[in-house]
């Protein structure tokens, strides 16, 4: 937008001309993705043209799930999966927020402690490497058996899923602090606290944020799977309920919503990272 200021007196362009100029300039950025999406929808529709097809095409999805697509805020006062998709996603996000916050706190604090201490690292690393490969859904039966209630179990699954990237990336971030920094600290005789606040933390922040970004993506994946088993209000349970009653169109609409929210979460994380991580480290 500011390019036009530099061009001088063009502020007085007519409105139509300004819009046309803007579109013309941005077109090469928008047209290819739009074409790709349209192409994808066409191929999808072609594959599902046959009347025996069990998967609905985009047109059928639109027809059958019309109310779910255009009224995401509907029925906040009704029970369970009757609520609009916004409320389902909101409920899922709440669970993600709790689990992810716990994972963030535990992951960063534990990561810094273990990263700074080579003995602790040697002790715990094999255990972490083993535990982190366990898929999130495999934790759910254990959580249910131990905690017995479905809501805390789902939050635990989020916690354990997003913990590993945050923890391990923090450890790496702390471990890779260059020797020079530590030498400077001892030369300047910095206290533990100053060392920590001025050197350790800023040096490892980019790694921590990588871990946080991966963690949020995994957490969103895990909640959808966990909710299929725990029930109630939530986008994962909504999809499972739609599968149970055979409403495939609803599943597809929910999938799109899940994808969009996942993308937004990722972008949010990277936006926060861009503000926090120091400029010259990027």
């Amino acid at each position, binding site marked *: 937008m500011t390019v036009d200021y530099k061009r001088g007196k063009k502020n007085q362009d007519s409105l139509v001309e*300004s819009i046309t100029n803007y579109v013309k300039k941005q077109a090469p950025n928008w047209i290819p993705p739009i074409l790709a999406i349209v192409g994808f929808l066409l191929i999808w529709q072609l594959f599902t043209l046959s009347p025996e097809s069990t998967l609905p095409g985009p047109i059928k999805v639109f027809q059958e799930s019309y*109310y779910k697509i*255009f*009224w995401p*805020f*509907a029925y906040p006062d009704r029970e369970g*999966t009757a609520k609009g998709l916004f409320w389902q996603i909101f409920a899922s996000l709440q669970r993600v927020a709790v689990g992810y916050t716990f994972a963030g706190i535990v992951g960063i604090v534990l990561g810094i402690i273990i990263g700074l201490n080579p003995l602790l690292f040697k002790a715990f690393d094999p255990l972490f490497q083993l535990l982190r490969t366990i898929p999130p859904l495999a934790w759910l039966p254990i959580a249910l058996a131990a905690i017995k209630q479905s*809501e805390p179990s789902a939050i635990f699954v989020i916690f354990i899923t997003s913990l590993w990237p945050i923890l391990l990336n923090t450890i790496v971030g702390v471990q890779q602090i260059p020797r020079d920094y530590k030498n400077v600290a001892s030369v300047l005789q910095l206290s533990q606290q100053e060392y920590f606040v001025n050197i350790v933390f800023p040096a490892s922040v980019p790694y921590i944020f990588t871990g946080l970004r991966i963690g949020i993506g995994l957490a969103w994946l895990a909640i959808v799977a966990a909710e299929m088993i725990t029930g109630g209000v939530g986008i994962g349970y909504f999809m499972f309920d739609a599968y*149970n009653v055979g409403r495939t169109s609803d599943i597809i609409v929910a999938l799109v919503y899940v994808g969009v929210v996942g993308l937004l979460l990722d972008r949010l994380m990277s936006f926060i990272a861009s503000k926090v991580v120091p400029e010259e480290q990027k």
Partner: protein
Amino acid sequence: MSEISRRKFMMTAIASTMGSVLLKGCLGNPPEPGNQGNSNTQSIAIPKANIPPEQMPEVKTVKIGFIGQTDAAPLIIAKEKGYFAKWGLDVTLQKQPSWAVIRDKLELGPAAGGLESAMVLTPMPYLMAMGLVTKGNAKIPMMMPLRLNVGGQGISVANTLKDTGVKLDTSVLKGKVSEAKLSGKQLRFAHTFKGGTSDMMLRYWLAAGGIDPDNDVITQIVPGAQLVTSMQTGDIQGFCVGDPWHLRAINQKVGYTALVTGEMWKDHPEKALSFRGDWALQHPKTTIAILKAVIEAQQWCDKMEHRQEMAQILSRDEYAKIPVPDIIDRLQGKINYGDSRPVVENSPNVMRYWEKGTASFPYKSHDLWFLLENERWGNIPKNTDLTKLISEVNGATLWRQAAQQMGVSAAEIPVGDSRGVEVFFDGVTFDPEKPQEYLKSLKIKRT
């Protein structure tokens, strides 16, 4: 205005106007078509009943779990038509994904975030009270004071077995059964819960024709949603369950309805309403109030002229979430078997909820039958004192109190606790006074 370019201002204004118009259109609730559930069905509020102080419920808020199928209609109608509110209750119905989860939540109990009451399969409270299906074999005190419905289930068979023409008599299947056994891949039949009503009905059906449900074929649990798909892939060859799975199998051309269960045993008991025994002991008046509301709903549901509206309420997302055309036929007694048999109208085997009290009263003789069948198949230890067990779990006394307090006519309150001798489709009789003779008369059993 000179600082901000006019174009930027216009773009912002247009974008925010479009945004707010879009949002406004998307906010609130969509217009109500018939299928989405008509909120105008209860425009007339039911006046609160005149409850004498000694009958006032101890607590007002209660959570009741249910499974999204037509059997749950009395609970749903009691809520939607205001019967719960009429008797001074504020009930939340919580849809559960499976019978296993209902069992888990009743195990937990209301204090630990579970449920104090739920819709159950008739044998379930007994299995829980004996500690047979619970974690750590804990014996959970249970109370079952009301039957929700009778009949209304069916057995579907895959089209791959259609040439045998199997209906009630499974002896025609014997050829295919031994063929499958020899080839190493036995025929499989599915139900919804081990020891539950569909498990027992399926086994009885197979055994009556001379097929051993454990050794000749495999009987297993398959969740409702996967029944038709499993039949399509050939993983199962038959299933016993409620609606709408049988019409689904017919519509998707994978199977046909061999029989509706009323043909096997007329007006057989199905689902029941159960409470945690300890909770019911502490809140007897609340329990009775719940029974009164559900009894009124059952009376409403039993009237055929209400079934259309009932199907519409059931079809809502938070309840059965099934489109009305999929359930309305069988609810109104119209049965399409999906084979050469003509479509039956006004079938006597339609699902019933009240039937002059006999569909709602929790007959002890029926509890006994399910326990005996469970013993038959080795789920229950042989010398269990069934009479003692039934006296602990069955809540017929509470039902009678509720019926009397609300003024149910004496003609509709059963006199004894037994429905008398039952006769099945294969001629076998069950006399509740002589349970061991019944067990002896059965040819295939595990005990």
